[in-house]
């Protein structure tokens, strides 16, 4: 699952950021968008997604939305892959 096919207004955990440009991956990191962090999809717009990361809204295009892989927090508990404890 990634941002382009997840549910609206639901909290997810990021499992992977597969951006083709490493610069973009680093940039997303500085925004707090990296494996283990939370993200919520706010709106689906034409070829564009509005997401909430660390209390900020960003619009990202579909290529980038597909690059950010997600998992439901419940699933993360089961698989025990997250470093961060989800409260």
């Amino acid at each position, binding site marked *: 699952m990634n941002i382009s096919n997840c549910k609206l207004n639901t909290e997810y955990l990021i499992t992977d950021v597969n951006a083709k440009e490493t610069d973009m991956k680093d940039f997303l990191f500085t925004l707090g968008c990296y494996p283990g962090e939370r993200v919520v999809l706010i709106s689906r717009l034409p070829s*564009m997604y509005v997401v909430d990361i660390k209390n*900020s809204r960003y*619009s990202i295009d579909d290529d980038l939305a597909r690059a950010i892989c997600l998992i439901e927090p419940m699933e993360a508990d089961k698989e025990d892959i997250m470093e961060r404890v989800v409260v």
Partner: protein
Amino acid sequence: MKIALAGNPNSGKTTLFNAITGKVEYVGNWPGVTVEKKEGSVKSSLNPGKRKMTIVDLPGAYSMSPYTSEESITRDFVRKEGPDVIINIVDATNLGRSLFFTSQLMELGIPVVIALNKSDMIQKKGIIIDTELLSELLGCPVVRTVSTKSMNNGLDFLIEAVQSVFDTKKKQQPLHIKGMKTDASKEEQEQIDKTRFSVVNEIVDRVERRRMDSSEHTFQDTIDRVVANKWLGIPIFALVIWVVFSISQSWLGPWLADLFVGWIDAFYELVESVLGENVHPVLSSLLLDGIIGGVGAVVGFLPLIMVLFFMLALLEDSGYMARVALVMDPYFKKIGLSGKSIIPMIVSTGCAIPGVMATRTIKNERQRRTTALLAPFMPCGAKLPIIALFAGVFFRDNVWVGTSMYFLAIFVIILGGLIIRKITGDTSKSYFIMELPEYRIPSIKRATISMLNRAKAFIVKAGTIILISNAVVHMLQTFNWRFQVVGTSAPETSILASIATPMAWLFIPLGFGIWQFAAAAVTGFIAKENVVGTLAVTFAITNFIDVEEFALISGGSDVMTVFGIGAVAALSYLVFNLFTPPCFAAIGSMNSEMESPKWLWGAIAFQLGMGYVLSFFVYQVGTLVTTGSVGSGFLGGLIAVLAMIGYVVYLMKKGSSKRMIPVAQEVA
């Protein structure tokens, strides 16, 4: 004492800078407005001790590892120029992300003071921040500020805190981050940064309480869904642009301009009566027709420009600009650009210089250079008088003349984008990401300040560059090569006419092969307002705005007859002036953003060619439609135009084949 202002984009650094220094630097409500560093000194009301304090405003950055070029300005400044104190502006509504950069700044060994800005917003959002605890955990002073307010904004405490950290010389301890080292490998660095974020998260968990989670759907998100709607997005954008330009050009602007021109006319008559008959006619003509007439013709359009800047400031303050970028992104991707390219273009409708500079926020080099080439096609504020003049004189102030120029500009940009993508052979796409600022009701006060500031700059320009240009044009027109005064019977013997006439030959296929028009087009490169000024001086017309009144005072011969060209040629001349290269100052800024002589000269040639080809088609097709036969110089012009188009097609073919090679190699 040198103080650097650093923080995340759109946290309000420049607003704070303006409030501290009393300057009026360009602000707007989207990330990436400031793209260069700016210096000022702390204003005396905040500096009772009269200490020397220089403050440097820096472009916004999310971290010490820059992503775009304007972010590297910030990193380089704090690393290399050694400021004495850093004011780190932290958006209070967004601690979790901002403190990442804070923790990096604190490792530089420079004392840091935190300005917890937008403190008024946190109450509205139901956020509680324990400032004292935050200060204790970070080990540096934290001051609440509201840089948009003029009173009780916390700036006095901020400056006090800055002075005290500077005076005490006590070393601040950076946050303890496990595994921290200076020569970390890429993997180690990633791990360090993860630890950094978790340290920051712990601090935020302790100091911040939120009543409402920010990830809930809000009214702002509903607005986003409307303005970026699949069907409404573009019509709303078109409507906004139309409102901005129709108010400035055909509604409020001309009404104010009428009023204004009355005063200029009165001033002209006053000076004329003071001079009387005793002053030498050459001197009095220079003063009246060259300087007051020429400058007056330009200044008469000032109200239009002021209204435009007022409207643009409101637009830039609202938060809508970032939404335009996301609405336009899918379309701009089709021409090889991205949504970020629209912001430089909108800024260019005010002035192309900041417009071209705004391209710094575009990461991809080819996209950045292409945007810097295309943005000046948007008619800027200085071109507004040209549009207003020709719309008024030849088209009876028809609104469609002005508006259609903006739509033609958009068409030219789309066409240009496609051509340049082909020539470069680069079809790469890049990701789009942009932070969405919150919408707010635009501040009338800020828009007024911005408008007055631009008006001041315009008047200064009119009183210097434009005044000198007009005086020079008038002198060159008054004398012949033997420095004798040219009589009214033989104006074509003047120095100006003899220089401009050979150039006018080139313009015959465009419908305005008259030396006055050629001279005006050339002085336009110094400043676009000069086009109007030079036409006023060379045709000896002082009143361009109240055309009907002019017809009355000059005994029935109106401006149109004096110009000696028809409406079609006038439209062609307008197009030529709008779509040829911008003024020298804007070309200079293209040069610094493109960082390549090849691109710069290519861009100038492209813009010249574009202006020529468009004018040619406007004049020849227009003449064919209105009179049934082609205009003068058709064949010669056609050969030139075909040669230009042919060369561009050749370059496009060459560019496409360049792209084919690597693909073929991959297949092999």
